C-alpha cells in the first residue's frame, strides 16, 4: 500500500472517531426521545466557544477550562429541557424535531452576537501540537479525542445496558405514556439525555476548535454526522462509532479516488452514496434494531 493511501486511512480513522463521538451524543437523544437533534452542531459550537472563552479570559490550565465547559454544558442541557422540551412532552415527535431546528438558528445567532463572526485561534494546549502515526503527522488533540471516544463509548454501552436511567430512557423513547405509567419522569429522562449529549458534543467541539480555530462554521459538523449515525443504526451506540469510522474512512478513500480518477468532489458525496446503498441492504443501518411489526 502506498504511503499516501495509508496516511489517508489513518486520518480517516482519526476523523471517523470524532464523528463517532458526536454520533453518540446524537444517538443518546434519539434513544431517549426519538428526536433527531438538528442543534447538535450548535452544541459543538457552544462547547468550543465556552472552552475558548474560559481559557482566554482567565488564563487557566486547559483541564480546568475543559471541566468548566462540561459543567456549563450540563446546565445548558437541563435548561433546554426545562424551558423548551418540557412543554412539548406528549406532542408529536416532529414538533420537537422542528424545535431543535429553531434552537439551532437561535444559538447560532446568539453565538455570532456574543463572539463575533471571525474565527478565533485556540490557545495551545499541548506541548507538542502534533505527533507522527504511520508516517502521518497527526494533531495531538486528535489522538486525545481517540482515547476519549473509546472511554465515552464504553460508558454509554454500560449506561444503556445496566443503569436504571438508561433503561428508563429506552422505555421513554418507546412509549412515553407507558413510561410515565411506570413512574418514570419523562422530564428527568430528557434532561439527562440532553445534558449528557451536550457534554459529549462539547468534547468534540473543543477538539475541532483546537484544530481549526473556533468559528460559527464548526456547527456544520452537526449535519455531517447524519450519515454516520444512520449508517450505524440510529439507536446504536456502537453503530454511531462504526458509522463514524466508515464515513471517516470513506471520505479519505474518496479523496484518494479524487486524485486518481478526477471525478471531483467524491469526498463530500461518497458517504451519501454509501449511505443509500447500505440502507437498501440493511434498512435499519448496520446495528439498528428493527421495528417490531406485529398485527
Amino acid at each position, binding site marked *: 500500500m502506498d504511503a499516501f493511501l495509508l496516511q489517508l486511512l489513518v*486520518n480517516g480513522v482519526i476523523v471517523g472517531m470524532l464523528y463517532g463521538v458526536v454520533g453518540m451524543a446524537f444517538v443518546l437523544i434519539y434513544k431517549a426521545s426519538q428526536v433527531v437533534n438538528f442543534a447538535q452542531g450548535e452544541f459543538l459550537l457552544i462547547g468550543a466557544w465556552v472552552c475558548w472563552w474560559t481559557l*482566554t479570559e482567565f488564563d487557566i490550565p486547559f483541564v480546568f477550562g475543559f471541566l468548566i465547559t462540561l459543567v456549563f454544558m450540563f446546565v445548558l442541557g437541563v435548561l433546554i429541557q426545562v424551558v423548551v422540551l418540557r412543554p412539548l412532552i406528549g406532542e408529536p415527535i416532529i414538533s420537537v424535531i422542528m424545535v431543535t431546528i429553531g434552537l439551532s438558528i437561535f444559538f447560532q445567532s446568539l453565538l455570532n452576537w456574543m463572539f463575533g*463572526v471571525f474565527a478565533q*485561534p485556540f490557545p495551545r494546549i499541548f506541548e507538542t501540537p502534533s505527533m507522527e502515526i504511520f508516517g502521518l503527522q497527526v494533531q495531538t488533540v486528535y489522538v486525545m479525542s481517540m482515547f476519549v471516544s473509546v472511554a465515552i463509548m464504553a460508558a454509554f454501552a454500560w449506561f444503556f445496558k445496566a443503569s436504571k436511567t438508561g433503561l428508563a430512557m429506552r422505555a421513554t423513547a418507546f412509549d412515553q405514556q407507558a413510561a410515565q405509567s411506570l413512574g418514570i419522569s419523562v422530564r428527568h429522562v430528557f434532561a439527562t439525555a440532553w445534558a449528557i449529549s451536550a457534554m459529549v458534543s462539547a468534547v468534540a467541539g473543543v477538539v475541532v476548535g483546537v484544530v481549526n*480555530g473556533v*468559528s460559527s*462554521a464548526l456547527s456544520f459538523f452537526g449535519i455531517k454526522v447524519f450519515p454516520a449515525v444512520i449508517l450505524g443504526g440510529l439507536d446504536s451506540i456502537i453503530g454511531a462509532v462504526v458509522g463514524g469510522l466508515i464515513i471517516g474512512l470513506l471520505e*479519505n478513500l474518496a479523496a484518494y479516488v479524487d486524485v486518481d480518477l478526477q471525478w471531483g468532489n467524491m*469526498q463530500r458525496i461518497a458517504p451519501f452514496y454509501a449511505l443509500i446503498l447500505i440502507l437498501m441492504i440493511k434498512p435499519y443501518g448496520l446495528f439498528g434494531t428493527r421495528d417490531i411489526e406485529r398485527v
Partner: protein
Amino acid sequence: EIPVGHIVDFTGATSGVGVSFGSGIADAMNWINANGGIDGDTLAFETYDYAYQAPRAVSTYRRWVAQDHIVAVQGWGTADTEALAEFVARDEIPYWSASYSGALTDPNGTGPRSTKAAPYNFFYGPSYSDGCRALVQWASEDWAARGEDGAPTFVHMGDNHPYPNAPKEACGEYAEELGFEVLPAINYTLAPGDFTPQCLTLKEIGADYAFLANTAGSGISLMTACATVGVETQFMTNVWGFDENAMRAAGEAADGTVFVVRTGTVWGDDAPGMETVRAISDASSRPGEYRLVHYITGICSAFYMKEAMEWAHENGGVTGPNIRQGMYAMSAANDGAWVPVGLEGVCLPSGWTAEDHRGLMTARIYRGHVNGSTEGQEIAELINSGTISLEFLEEITLERRPEWIGY
C-alpha cells in the same frame, strides 16, 4: 435625500468578511452625509442584512424599489448579485457589488466568453479572474526568481460553487499560457472541516502553487491542516480568501501566504487618502479599531458611487441612468480612470466605459507573515508587536485583453 439600498451579510455564511466590507460602506456613507452629502443631499440608505440568502435580498430590493424608489444599491454576494442583475438593468439602478465575478464586467454581453449582459453592475477591484491571473503572473516571476528547473505546477482549490469556481477556467488558461502545468482542481468545502486529505493530496501531487478560491474560514482550516501534514506548496488566495484576521486565526500555519489587495494601502499605511479613511472609521460606532483590507475597499466602493452621483446631480439629477453615466463621464474626464477626491493613494485609479466594466486591471500582491503565537491577542496588538505583518510584493497590472471581457 437620495434613497440608496445597502445589502450586507453580517450574520450569514460569508459574514466573516461581510461585516468588515459592509461596515466600510455604511461608515463611508454616514461620513458622506455628515460632510455635505451629495452636494447637500443626504444619502438615505438602509443597511439590510440578508444573511446570504438570495431570495431575501431580492425581496428587499423590490421593497426598496417600490417603496423607497432607490436610485442605487451597494450589494454583496454572487448569487444575489447575479439574481438581481437583470432587475437592476430593467429598473436602471446601478448596482455595486462585492461579487467580482468576471461575468459582471461585460455591460453588453458581447465578449467572446461572456454569458450575459450586465449594464448596471459595477464593482471596485479586479475581477476574480483578473485577481487570479495577477497571482499566476506573480507566481511565474517567483518561479523564475527561485531559479528552479522545469515547469511549475499550479492547482486551483475551492468548493464546487459559483463563487470559488468563477475564476477557475479563466485563470487556468492564463496559467497554461505562462507555462504552468495546471493540475486537476482540488475540492474543499466552503464550510471548514478536516482538510487533511486535501493536504495529503497536495503533497502527493507536489503542487508548487495553489490558488485558494474559497473564503477565509475554510482557508484557515486548510492551512492549519496542511501545516500539520507538512505541505510545501505556495498558497495564493483571492481577495476574500485572506486577511489580517485569517492570519490571526490560522497562526503560523498562514505564514507566507500570498494574496491580492485591491487598495493602495492597508491599515497603518500612510497615504494622503488614509486621513479620510481614518476619519470615517473614527466617526463610526467603533472608532480606533484596526480595520481589515475589506473595510477600506468598502469605502472605495462607496466613494465611486458618491462621485458618480455628484456628476449626476450636476447633469440632470440623481437618477439611476445618470449615475451610471456619471461613472463613465468621470472616467472619461480623467483619461479613463480616476480616484475619488480624498482617497488619493487609497483607491487605485479605476475607470469604466459603456463597453467595458472592468474598472480595475491592477492587483497589489501581498504576502502575509506570521511569526509566533497569535492566540488571545487582538489584531492591532499583533501588528504592533510585529507578530503578523503584511509585506507588499508587487503591483501587477494586466493587459486589458478584449477576449477577457465578461470572463
